[in-house]
């Protein structure tokens, strides 16, 4: 059912995204672009002692990518970078078909996207941006 995917939680996050904006002094950042659909996200992180202290994003995209980014930012703020990466891995695995994976909280709302493989990239875009950002060092 398409309503499982476009449920209130997703629509809400898409309409009122959390952590939208930019950081004054990010330690890490990255830009991701999906040329196939035009989704774009710029992610900024403030990492201190291995912990993601603050996070913000800007960009344009579909409801799925916007909601996915918003949800991600709320979930990883306060986590260590290792925890965040591990969560992203679990999410990517689950969304590409590994049903054995534990309940992932708000991320579960995005799991029905697996019926629409051409949209999976929309949901994983912010997680790719996260990996990119953690590999980067900004001034």
């Amino acid at each position, binding site marked *: 059912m*398409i309503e499982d*995917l476009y449920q209130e939680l997703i*629509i809400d996050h898409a309409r009122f995204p959390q952590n939208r904006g930019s950081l004054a002094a990010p330690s890490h950042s990255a830009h991701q672009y999906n040329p196939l659909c*035009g989704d774009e996200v710029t992610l900024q992180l403030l990492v201190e002692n291995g912990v993601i202290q603050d996070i913000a994003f800007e960009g*344009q995209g*579909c409801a*799925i990518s916007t909601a996915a980014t918003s949800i991600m930012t709320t979930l990883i703020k306060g986590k260590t970078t290792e925890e965040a990466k591990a969560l992203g891995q679990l999410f990517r695995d689950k969304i590409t078909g590994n049903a054995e994976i534990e309940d992932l909280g708000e991320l579960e709302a995005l799991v029905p996207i697996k019926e*629409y493989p051409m*949209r999976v990239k*929309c949901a994983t875009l912010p997680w790719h941006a996260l990996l990119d950002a953690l590999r980067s060092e900004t001034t």
Partner: protein
Amino acid sequence: MLTANFPILEIPSRGKRLAYLDNAATTQKPQSVIDATAHYYREQNANVHRGAYWLSQEATALFDQTRVQLANWINAESSDEVIFTKGCTESINLVAHSWGMNNLSQGDVILVSRMEHHANFVPWQQVSIAKGASIVEIPITDLGEIDLEAYQNLLTGRVKMVAIVHVSNSIGTINPIKKMIAMAHKVGAKVMVDGAQALAHLKVDVQDLGVDFYAISGHKMYGPTGVGALYGKRELLDAMPPYQTGGSMIRTVSFEETTFAALPDKFEPGTPNIGGIIPWASAITFLEGQNLLEVAAQEANLAQVLEKQIEQINGIRVVGKAAHRAGIVSILADWTHAHDLGTILDSEGVAVRTGHHCCMPLMKRFNIVATTRASFGIYNTMEDVDQCVAAVQKAKRIFG
């Protein structure tokens, strides 16, 4: 019934009736084309041209026949002017490379319309960079029509090539190419028309148009994938050097020197897509059996009804309002992104395309990133329109 001829239309999509509205991307194939393909591989398969035996003789005769049939269909003066390619994109690359690299120089101008598909844009941009020519935009109006006055003003003696799409795949505009060709010829420019979207809907007469080069895609005119054609005026093709080289396009080969075959072989190295070219004839036969004027009117009518009905939904508008338009509707919703709309339509069995439709410069012109596009074919009916409208309404309910 026409739809009975297209078995794929009977197969449910995500449990719903399929409303196939992605004809601008590729058309479905009539049973005759499918049968001809299987028949070729089952009973006629052989390499063409140089076989010493019966099977090859038969395959060669059928292969040559498609060329003649296509040449007649577009009213080329000779079948030698029809070069087989792997698709419309390759046809244009052939011209941009073989003609462009040898006829353009520093200071020359290539005019390219703002509504070109990347296939009739990027090759010209590449050759302009290589040769120091400049690529200049033919602007379009807010309605999505060529700005003919601006075009007239751009036509100076420095213009060597005009690249223009016959029917826009994004917004359906049917361009006045006959007039535009005549205007270009007045200043001595050649014209490359991208006919990818035209052949399934319009009767094209290359001699009447006076066009220099005309690119065709097989899979968009009810034929197989992997086949296309380039029509070119004989004197132009004769003067052009080969594009790709290899077997079958040569006269003699030695370490000292290679000489090339005559048209059309000169431009067709290697084993052609025989299993695609031969069934392509069945697609042309299928089109020959239709009243294309009626078909085009019916497709345009369905598109108009769709447009009218969805524009009544709050926050929906259609991009591209040209007076002369094919059955293509490019939809924007201010309450959702093209991709979300596309996915909800998909869940309702409605097959549409979302994105920039390989027309980024056009998207930019309208300050948008993507649209949700419905494009009609010969088998579409009012039922498809209704299904699409209902699906858009559902999306509106979901997004509130």
